[in-house]
C-alpha cells in the first residue's frame, strides 16, 4: 500500500527550525559518520528522506530523532550543507508538539511570542500569588526569611496548617501538574511509536526485560557518551545531574534548604554543587550559542534561549537568596526567593511538559522503546526462520 507523501510537511517543519533539508541528495555521508547509525537505523539519512518526501505517518511513529544527541558531526560532513543534525533537532521539536495533546507545545514552538507571553504571565501570577500569600494569608513578616513568621515558610507549619505545607506543599502540587501533562504526552508517544503496532503493543516480556534502560540512560547519558565528540556529552551530563540533584533537594529536602542560623552542610554541599554546575553549564551553553562555537550551537531556536534564560535566572536567584540571607538581609532574600519562584514555576509548569525540557522524558523512553522494538524484531526474525518458507511468504 502506497504511503501518501505530503510535500507541504517540509514547510511546516521550518516553523520548528528545520533548514536546508531539501538540499540533501542522499550521499549517505551523515549516516556513515554517525556512530549510532547502522543495521536497521540509518539515521539521520532516513529521517531526512522521510521529511523531504513528507511521509508524516512514518515520522510520527519514528524514534530516530530521539536517538540523536546532535553532536553535529553529520552536519559538518554534509557535502551539501543540508544540516542533518539541525533537522533531527527540529524533528524533536515537531514530535514534542505531536505528542502534546494540549496543543501548547505546537503553539510555543511555532511562535516564541506566545511562549514568552505565557512564561511572563505565569511568572507574574506566581509572584503575585506568593506576595499575597506572604503578606496577607500567612501574615508573615517580609523581614523574616525562615523560622517563625517566615515570609515564605518552606516546609514547616504555616498559620495552622500541618507540617509539610507552605512552599513545599506548593512544589508537590506543581509536580503533580507536571507529571500529569508530561505523563499523558509520554503515553501518546508510546501509542504513536509502539502502541499502534500490534507486534510492539503487548510485548510485555521485552518491556520488562529492557526496563533497566530507562534509569540507566536517564542518570548516565551512557548513549550520549558513545558520540565521537565527548565535550557536549560532558556538559550535558553535568547539567543533567545538577538539575536532577536540585530536583531531589527541592522535592524532598526543601525544609533543610532554608538554612537556619547554622547551615546543614550535608544538604547544602549538594545544593551548592548543583547550582554551580547548573550555572556553569548554562552559561557555557549560552556563550556557545552566542558565539556559535560548536556545530550544535549554530542554529538556536527561540525555545533554546528561553530554556537557558530560565535556568540562569533560577540558579542565580537560588544562590542570591542564600547569600543575602546569610548576609542577614532577610528582606532582600525574600524578594530574591519570590523572583526565584517566578522562574521555577513557568519552568516546571510550561517548559518541562510543553517545550524543550520534555526531552528529559522522551529521550530515555525512545531508547527504551527502540530496544524493545529491536527485541521484538529479532524474535520475529527467529520465528520466521523457524517457519516453512511458504508460511513466511504468506505471512
Amino acid at each position, binding site marked *: *500500500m*502506497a*504511503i*501518501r*507523501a505530503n*510535500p*507541504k510537511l*517540509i*514547510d511546516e517543519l521550518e516553523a520548528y527550525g528545520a533548514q*536546508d533539508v*531539501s*538540499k*540533501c*541528495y*542522499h550521499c549517505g555521508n551523515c549516516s556513515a559518520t554517525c556512530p549510532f547509525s547502522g543495521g536497521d537505523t540509518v539515521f539521520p539519512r*532516513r529521517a531526512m*528522506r*522521510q521529511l*523531504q*518526501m*513528507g*511521509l508524516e505517518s*512514518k515520522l510520527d511513529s519514528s524514534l530516530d530523532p530521539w536517538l540523536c544527541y546532535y553532536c553535529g558531526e553529520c552536519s559538518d560532513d554534509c557535502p*551539501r550543507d543540508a544540516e542533518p543534525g539541525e533537522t533531527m533537532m527540529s524533528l524533536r521539536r515537531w514530535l514534542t508538539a505531536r505528542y502534546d495533546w494540549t496543543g501548547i507545545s505546537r503553539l510555543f514552538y511555532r511562535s516564541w511570542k506566545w511562549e514568552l507571553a505565557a512564561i511572563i504571565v505565569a511568572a507574574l501570577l506566581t509572584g503575585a500569588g506568593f506576595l499575597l500569600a506572604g503578606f496577607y494569608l500567612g501574615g508573615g513578616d517580609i523581614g523574616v526569611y525562615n523560622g517563625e513568621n517566615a515570609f515564605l515558610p518552606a516546609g514547616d507549619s504555616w498559620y495552622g496548617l500541618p507540617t509539610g505545607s507552605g512552599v513545599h506543599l506548593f512544589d508537590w502540587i506543581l509536580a503533580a501538574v507536571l507529571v500529569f501533562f508530561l505523563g499523558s504526552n509520554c503515553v501518546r508517544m508510546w501509542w504513536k511509536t509502539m502502541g499502534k503496532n500490534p507486534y510492539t503493543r503487548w510485548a510485555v516480556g521485552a518491556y520488562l526485560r529492557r526496563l533497566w534502560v530507562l534509569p540507566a540512560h536517564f542518570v548516565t547519558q551512557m548513549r550520549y557518551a558513545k558520540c565521537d565528540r565527548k565535550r557536549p556529552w560532558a556538559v550535558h551530563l553535568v547539567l543533567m545531574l545538577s538539575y536532577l540533584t536540585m530536583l531531589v533537594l527541592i522535592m524532598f529536602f526543601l525544609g533543610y534548604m532554608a538554612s537556619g542560623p547554622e547551615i546543614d552542610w550535608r544538604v547544602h554541599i549538594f545544593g551548592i554543587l548543583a547550582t554551580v554546575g547548573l550555572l556553569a553549564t548554562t552559561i557555557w551553553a549560552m556563550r556557545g550559542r552566542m558565539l556559535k562555537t560548536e556545530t550544535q550551537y549554530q542554529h538556536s531556536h527561540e525555545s533554546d534561549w528561553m530554556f537557558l534564560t530560565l535556568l540562569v535566572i533560577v540558579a542565580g536567584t537560588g544562590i542570591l537568596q542564600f547569600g543575602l540571607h546569610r548576609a542577614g538581609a532577610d528582606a532582600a532574600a525574600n524578594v530574591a526567593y519570590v523572583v526565584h519562584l517566578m522562574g521555577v514555576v513557568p519552568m516546571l509548569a510550561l517548559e518541562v511538559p510543553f517545550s524543550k525540557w520534555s526531552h528529559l522524558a522522551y529521550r530515555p523512553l525512545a531508547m527504551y522503546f527502540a530496544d524493545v522494538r529491536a527485541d521484538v524484531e529479532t524474535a520475529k526474525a527467529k520465528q520466521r526462520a523457524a517457519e516453512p518458507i511458504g508460511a513466511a511468504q504468506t505471512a
Partner: protein
Amino acid sequence: MDEQRIGVYVCNCGTNIAKVVDCDAVVEASASLPGVVVARPYKYMCSNPGQEMIVADITEHDLNRVVVAACSPRMHEPTFRKALQKAGVNPYFLEMANIREQCSWVHHDPVEATDKAKALTRAAALRVARHEPLERRSVDMCPNTLVIGGGIAGMSAALDLADAGGKVYIVERNDHLGGNVARVDLTAPYLDSASDMLTGRVTRVVEHGNIDVLLESEVKSLEGFVGNFHGGIRSKLHDGGVVDQEVDIGSVIVATGYKEFDAGRITHYGYGKLPNVITSFELEKMLRTGRVETKEGGAPQYVAIIHCVGSRNLEFHTYCSRVCCMTALKYAHEIKAAVPGCYVSDVYIDMHAFGKGHEDFYRRSSEVKTLFLMYEKNDYPVVRRAESKDDCEMLIEVNEKLSGETIEIPADLVVLMVGMEAREDSEEVARLVNISCDKDGWFIESHPKLDPVATTTDGIFIAGACQYPKDIPDSVAQARAAAGRILARIARGQLEIDAVFAEVDEDRCSGCRICNDLCPYSAIEYDEEKGRSHVISALCKACGACVAACPSSAITARHFTDAQIFAQIEGVLA
C-alpha cells in the same frame, strides 16, 4: 618491369638492434637474395648519413628498389620514402622490415632473434621485388558547403564558413530557421532566454551575403565525392509548386537534429488520456506565454516532473537523452517563479548533471525545495486520477528507491520529460549522403573518440543532435568544429588523394556485386550498363575488405596486392 636492383640496409639502431640481432649475419643472408645488388649494415639508417648512403647507392648501383631493416614502418617509412624520392626513385619502391619493435626489443636469444630478422628481411626483399610505382593524385576542393538543417548547429557552422568567405547553402525543411531551440523558453543552467540567443543568429544568417537560406526545401540528390559534390535541392513555392536547383559543393554538413519521443507510447503516464499530463515541449509553450496553468485554467498547487520518458529503458530507447535532467531542473525554477508557493517534485532515475555549471544548478534547484524522487529503471511510476477526497488532481505512485518505500505524490500538472529520438527519415538522409545510422537511427561518426565530427564518407560531416542527443553548447561546438575541418581543406584548395587504394580490373570483374555492400565508405559503384563494379579512388581508404572478398580476384589493393603478400609469406617461411 626492367631488371630488379635491390638494396638492403640493415640498421643497428645504435645498439638497440645490434645488441641482440647479428646485423652482419642478416646483411650476409640478404646479399644472396634474388635481385639484391647491395646489402649494408649501418649504425643509424634514419640519420642523415644513413639516408645519404641510400641516395648515393641508388645513383651508384642504380638501385630501383630498397629494403630497410630497422624499426617499425609506422615510425620511419615516411623518412625513407623521402630518401627514395630525393634519389628520383618512386617512394613506393621501399619496404621496411621491422627488426626492432618486433624482434630485437622483444627477444633476448641472439640466435632466434637473428633468424627472425633474416626471415623478415627476406620477406621484405621478396615483397619489394613485386612493388609497383604509385603516384599520389590531387583533386580540386570546391569552397561551397551544403548545410542540411537550419537549427542552432546548422546556423553556427554556416556562419563560420560564410564569414571565412565560402558560399553556404542552408537547406531547411520548415518555413523558419531555429529548429528545436526555437521551441524553448529559457536555457539551463544559466536561465537566459533561448529566443534572445537565437534571434541574433537568425538575423545574421539571413542577412549574410554568403549564405543562401532555402526554407521549405529538401535535398533530393547528392552525387560525387569529397571536394566535388553535386546536390539537387527541391524548394516549395508559395503558389504550391516546386522548384529544383543544382548546387556544386565541396563538403556537406548534416545537422538535421532530432524529434521528441511520443509520450503516448508509454501507457503508465496516461498522456493523451489525463488532460493535465503534458510533455516538456507543451510546458515550454506555457512558459513562453508566462502562464503555467491546468487545462481548467487554474494554477497548479502540485507539479510533478517525470524524467527519462522514452529514454534509458529497455522498451523504447536504452540511451540517455542528456538534456532532460537539466531542462527539468530549469522547469523547477521557472514553475516556482510562475506559480509562487507551488510544490514541484522531480521523479527521476539518476540525475545526470555532467555539464559545465550543471552540478551547481542541481544544487540550486534542491535549495528551492524541489522534491526529488528516485525510481528504478524500467519500473515506471504510474499516474492516475485522484479521488475527490484528495486535494489534488492526480496521484503518482512511485517505488521510491532511496527510501525503499512505495509512495504516492499529489499532482495537478504532470510534465513528461520526453527524450530525443532520431528523425523518422534519418535512414533516408543517411542513404542520400552515403553515411550510416546506428540501431537507434543516429548518424555514425568516423571515430567515436578521435573523429566525432567526420563520417565514414569523406567530405560529409555531422553536427548537433542528429549524431546523438546533445545540448546547445555541444551541438554548437560540433558544428563549429565541422566548419573548421572544412575551412582547413578549403584553405589548401586541393585535396591530396592517397596513392594506396583499391582498383577493379574490369576485364576480370563479373559483376557479381559481392563487394558493393562491403565498403564502409561507399566507394564502390556498380555500373548497370557494363555490369561491372568500380572503385571511386577518392573515397577509397584502402582497407582491402573488397579485395579479399572478391571471388574472382578482380580487385587489387595497390601496395597490398596478393602477389606482394604471397611473396612476403614465402619470404618469412623460406
